[in-house]
C-alpha cells in the first residue's frame, strides 16, 4: 500500500537526517577528519536520494483526487513530516558548508577545536548508510573539493523545497499530529538512562540534591533499625547471663 511505503521511506529519511546532524556537530572539532568529510558527503547524497524518492511518491499520492478524506489527512501529515525533515536537512547542509569552509583540514595554521570528542563517527555513518562497515576511498583533498558539490546540492535542495511549497497545496498548520505530548516516553526501545547513568557530571544540581536527600533518609531509618536490633540482642545476652548467674 502507498501509505506503508511512504512511512518506511520517511523513516529512512528521518534516520539519515538524524545521523547527518550528528555528523555535522562533529565538524570542526577533534573528531573531524578526512573520514568524517567523506561520511558527510555520502550521507548527504543518500539523504538527497531519499528526499527525491519521497517527494515523488508523496506528490503523486497527494495529486490523486480520488482519495478519501482520512487518506488525504494522513498524506498531508506525512507531507508535513517530510517538509520538516527537509528543513532540518537544508539548514544542516548550509551549516556544514560554512563550518567546512572555516575549518579546512590541510591548513596547518587552522586548528581544529578540541572539544573532548575523540572517537570516530564511522558507526553513525554506517547506521545512516545502512551498511555494516564504512569503506573509505576518497581523495585527500576532499575537504575543499567537496565544498563545491555541497554548494550546488544546497541550491538543488532549496529549489526543490520552493517547488514543493508552490506545487503542493498542503496547509501545514491544519495538520493534527497523532502523537500527544510525552508520547516519546511510551517508547519500548531502551533509549532510557543507560546513556549517562551515574556518571552525569554535567547534570543539574536539583537532581543531585534529590538523590542525596533520599539516600540520607534511607540510611537514617536503616541505622535506627540496626540500633534497635543491637539493643535487643544486648538485652537478651544480659538476661541470659543474669539467669545463668542466679
Amino acid at each position: 500500500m502507498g501509505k506503508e511505503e511512504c512511512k518506511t521511506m520517511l523513516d529512512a529519511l528521518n534516520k539519515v537526517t538524524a545521523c547527518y546532524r550528528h555528523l555535522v556537530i562533529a565538524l570542526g572539532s577533534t573528531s573531524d577528519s578526512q573520514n568524517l568529510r567523506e561520511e558527510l558527503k555520502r550521507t548527504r547524497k543518500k539523504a538527497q536520494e531519499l528526499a527525491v524518492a519521497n517527494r515523488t511518491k508523496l506528490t503523486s499520492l497527494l495529486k490523486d483526487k480520488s482519495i478519501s478524506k482520512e487518506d488525504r489527512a494522513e498524506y498531508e501529515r506525512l507531507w508535513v513530516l517530510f517538509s520538516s525533515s527537509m528543513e532540518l536537512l537544508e539548514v544542516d547542509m548550509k551549516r556544514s558548508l560554512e563550518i567546512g569552509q572555516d575549518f579546512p583540514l590541510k591548513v596547518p595554521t587552522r586548528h581544529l577545536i578540541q572539544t573532548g570528542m575523540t572517537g570516530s563517527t564511522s558507526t553513525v555513518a554506517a547506521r545512516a548508510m545502512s551498511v555494516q562497515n564504512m569503506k573509505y576511498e576518497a581523495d585527500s583533498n576532499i575537504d575543499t573539493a567537496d565544498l563545491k558539490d555541497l554548494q550546488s546540492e544546497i541550491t538543488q535542495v532549496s529549489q526543490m523545497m520552493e517547488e514543493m511549497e508552490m506545487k503542493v497545496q498542503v496547509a501545514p498548520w491544519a495538520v493534527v499530529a497523532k502523537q500527544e505530548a510525552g508520547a516519546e516516553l511510551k517508547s519500548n526501545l531502551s533509549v532510557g538512562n543507560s546513556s549517562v547513568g551515574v556518571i552525569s557530571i554535567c547534570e543539574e544540581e536539583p537532581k543531585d540534591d534529590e538523590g542525596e536527600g533520599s539516600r540520607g533518609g534511607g540510611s537514617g531509618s536503616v541505622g535506627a533499625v540496626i540500633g534497635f536490633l543491637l539493643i535487643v540482642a544486648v538485652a537478651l545476652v544480659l538476661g541470659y547471663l543474669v539467669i545463668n548467674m542466679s
Partner: protein
Amino acid sequence: MTINTMAKGGWQREQMICFRKVGLCNHVLCLFTQIIAAPTPKEHPARCETNSKEERESGTCDVALFSDYLLISLLLTFHLHSFVCFLNNCVFHKQMEKMIVAMQDPDMGMKLRNQRLLITVIPHAMTGHDVIMWLIHKYSVCEEEALHLGGMLVKYGYIYPLKEPRSLVLQPDESPYRFQTPYFWTSSRWPASELDYAIYLAKKNIRKQGELMEYEKERYSLLHKKINHTWDFVVMQAREQLRASKQRRKADRIVLECQEQAYWLINRPPPGVQNMLDVGLERQNNFNLRGTLNSDFYKNEIDVCRRALGRNRVKSSICLEGFLKYSEQYQNHDPIMQGCLPSNPWISDDTAHWTMNTEMVPVPTRLRVERWSFSFMELLNDAMGRREFMLYLEKEFSAENLCFWQACEEIRHGESSKIVEKVEEVYKNFLAPGAARWVNIDSKTMDKTLEGIKQPHRFVLDDAQMHIYFLMKKDSYPRYLKSDLYKNMLAKAIVPQETKKSVFPFMRRQRHSSPSPAQAVAQATEEDGRNKGAG
C-alpha cells in the same frame, strides 16, 4: 579629528578591547566607520548662519587625491574583514571565534588536561585559571581585563563550564571548562529554531524519563501547542537522534550531552537568567543582504565615503563655545533656571504667565522684547516681533522685503496643492519686472529663480529668500534695534510682579519647582559671595 568613541551607539567596552588587540587595520576601521557615521549638522538654508560654503570649498581640494588612496585601502581592509560579517553577524563574535581558534594552537595554545569521571576519562578540559593566564600572556592585558574577556567567552557559549553548567561565569580557579563545538557556536545567522528546541526537550524527556525541570515542562507543553503539526516529526527525530548517539562511545556521548545542554542554556535561558543573545537597541539591521562585491559596488562605496569626507564639520571647541554663549545669554530667560514671573503656573495654578506671553498681547513682557535683540531669527519667530519689525520697515519703505520673506515661508511650509498658485502670486507681486512690490535681488539669483519658477516646487524660491533674509539681517535689523520704535517698546514692556506670598506658610506661592536647579545656582552664588567676602 573630533571623534567621540564613547558616543551613543558607539563602541561597547568589549568591542573596544577586542579592537585594540587585533591590529592596526582594525583601529583604522574603527576610525573610518566613525567618520562615516558622524552626524551631519542640519543645513537649512534660511536658518543656518555658519560659513558652511567657504569652509567646504577650501577644505576638499588637496584632500581629494590623498583621500582616494586612503579610501580604497581602507575599503579593502574594511570589506575583507567584514566580508564574513555580512549577514548580520556581530563583529565581536568573529573576534571571539578567532580567539578560540588561537587557543587551539598546539604550541602557543591553551594547556589542556583530562577530566576524570568515575570510569571514563575525557580529554580537553581546562581550568578557569589556565584561561586567564593564557589571555594575560597572549594579549598582554591585566588580570581584570582577562577575567572580563574570559567571562565573555563563557557568556556567549564558546566555552562552557563542566562543574556547574548553569552558572555561566569564568571562575579564576580550578573549575573545569571545555570548548564548544563550532556547530553550537552562537551565531545570528543560524538562530536556534523552535523545532530544534522541541527535539532537544523531547530527547531530554526520554533520557530522564519525564523528569524535566519546571520551566522546561512549561516550554514543552507550549511548544506542543505551537508546533503541533510537526509533533510527530519531533518525536521521531528525537528517538532517531538518541539512537544515533548511542553508536558512539561513552565518553563522546557524555561530551555531546554537555555540549547540547550548554548550547540550550544560552539560546533558551531558564527564567530569571539574562538572555545573552538579546542585543536590544543595538541590533544591526539587515538592509544590505549579501550583495555581489563587484566594482560597481565598490565605486558606490567610494562615492558615499567621499561625500562623507566632504561633509562640513565644526570643531567641538567652537561648538562648545557657541553653546556656552547661548546658555549664558538665555540663562535669565529660562523659566526653570530663573523662575517664572509672576509664578510658575504648574505649581501655583495661576495662568498669568501664559496669558501674558501669548502671541498677540497689547503689551509684551520685557524678557520677550529683550529676546528680540538676541538674534534676527528670534525676532522673526515671534509674531509680535514680526509685526513691530514690519511697522519699522514701512517707515523705511522696505517692507516688501519682509512680505516677500513671509510669502516664501508660506510656500515652504504650506499645502502642496497650493504651491503653484502661491508661486504665481509671489512672482506677480515681487519678482516680475515692474511689480508693485519689487524686491531687490542680485541678477544671478534672479535669473536662477525665474528659471526655476517655470517648474515650481516647494523650495524653488529658497535662494531668493535667503538673499533677502541676509539683506534684512545685515541692514535693517541692526538699525531697528537702535531705533526709537524698539526702544519705546522696551520701555513700555512690563515686568510682571512676583505674586506675593501670603501670610500662611502653607499657602505660599512658589516661583520654583522643587527641588529647583535655580535654587542650587542661587546657593552656589551665595557661597561664592561669602567666600569672596571672607577671603
